[in-house]
C-alpha cells in the first residue's frame, strides 16, 4: 500500500505541530521551575540572612560589652577612674564594627557561588 504524498505532508505537518507544542510545554515548565527556584532562593535566603543578622547583632553587642567590662575592671584595679573605661569602650566599638565589616564583606555563600579559596 504505497503511501500517497499528501499523507506524508499531513504527517509532517502534524509532526511539526507536535514538536512546537512540546517546545512551548517545555518552556512553560522551565519558566515555572525558575519561578519556583527563585521562591526557594528567597526562602533559603531568608534563613541564611536571618542567621547572618543574628551573628552580626550578637558579635557587635558582645564586642562592645566585653570591652567596656574589661575597661571597667581595669579602672577598678588601677584606680584610674574613667580613663580605661572610655579607652576600652572606644576600642570595643571599633572591634564591633570591624567584625561586622568582616561579616558583611564575606556575604553568605548563595547557591552557585564558588567557594572562595581558603
Amino acid at each position, binding site marked *: 500500500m504505497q503511501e500517497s504524498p499528501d499523507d506524508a505532508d499531513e504527517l509532517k505537518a502534524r509532526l511539526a505541530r507536535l514538536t512546537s507544542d512540546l517546545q512551548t510545554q517545555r518552556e512553560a515548565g522551565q519558566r515555572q521551575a525558575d519561578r519556583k527556584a*527563585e521562591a526557594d532562593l*528567597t526562602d533559603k*535566603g531568608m534563613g*541564611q540572612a536571618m542567621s547572618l543578622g543574628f551573628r*552580626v547583632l550578637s558579635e557587635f*553587642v558582645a564586642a562592645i560589652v566585653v570591652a567596656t567590662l574589661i575597661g571597667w575592671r581595669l579602672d577598678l584595679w588601677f584606680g584610674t577612674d574613667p580613663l580605661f573605661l572610655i579607652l576600652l569602650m572606644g576600642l570595643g566599638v571599633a572591634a564591633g564594627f570591624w567584625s561586622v565589616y568582616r561579616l*558583611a564583606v564575606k556575604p*553568605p555563600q548563595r547557591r552557585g557561588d564558588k567557594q572562595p579559596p581558603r
Partner: protein
Amino acid sequence: MDPVAAKYIGAGLAAIGMGAAAIGVGTIFGNFLSGALRNPSASDGQFGRAFIGAALAEGLGIFAFLVAILLLFVK
C-alpha cells in the same frame, strides 16, 4: 529630686531609645522593600545586607535597653 525617682525617670527615658531603634529597623526594611520591588532580581543578593543593617540598628536598641536595665537594677 530624690535620686530614686531620678533613676526611674532616667530608665523610662532610656527606653525611648528602643523605640528609635524600631524606627531605624522599619526604615531599613521599608527602603529595602521599595528597592526590591523596583529591581526584584537584584534583591536576593542584598537580602543578607538588609538584615545586617537591621541587626546594627537592633544592636543600638539593645544598648538603650542595657542602659535602662543598668539604671533600674544597679545600686
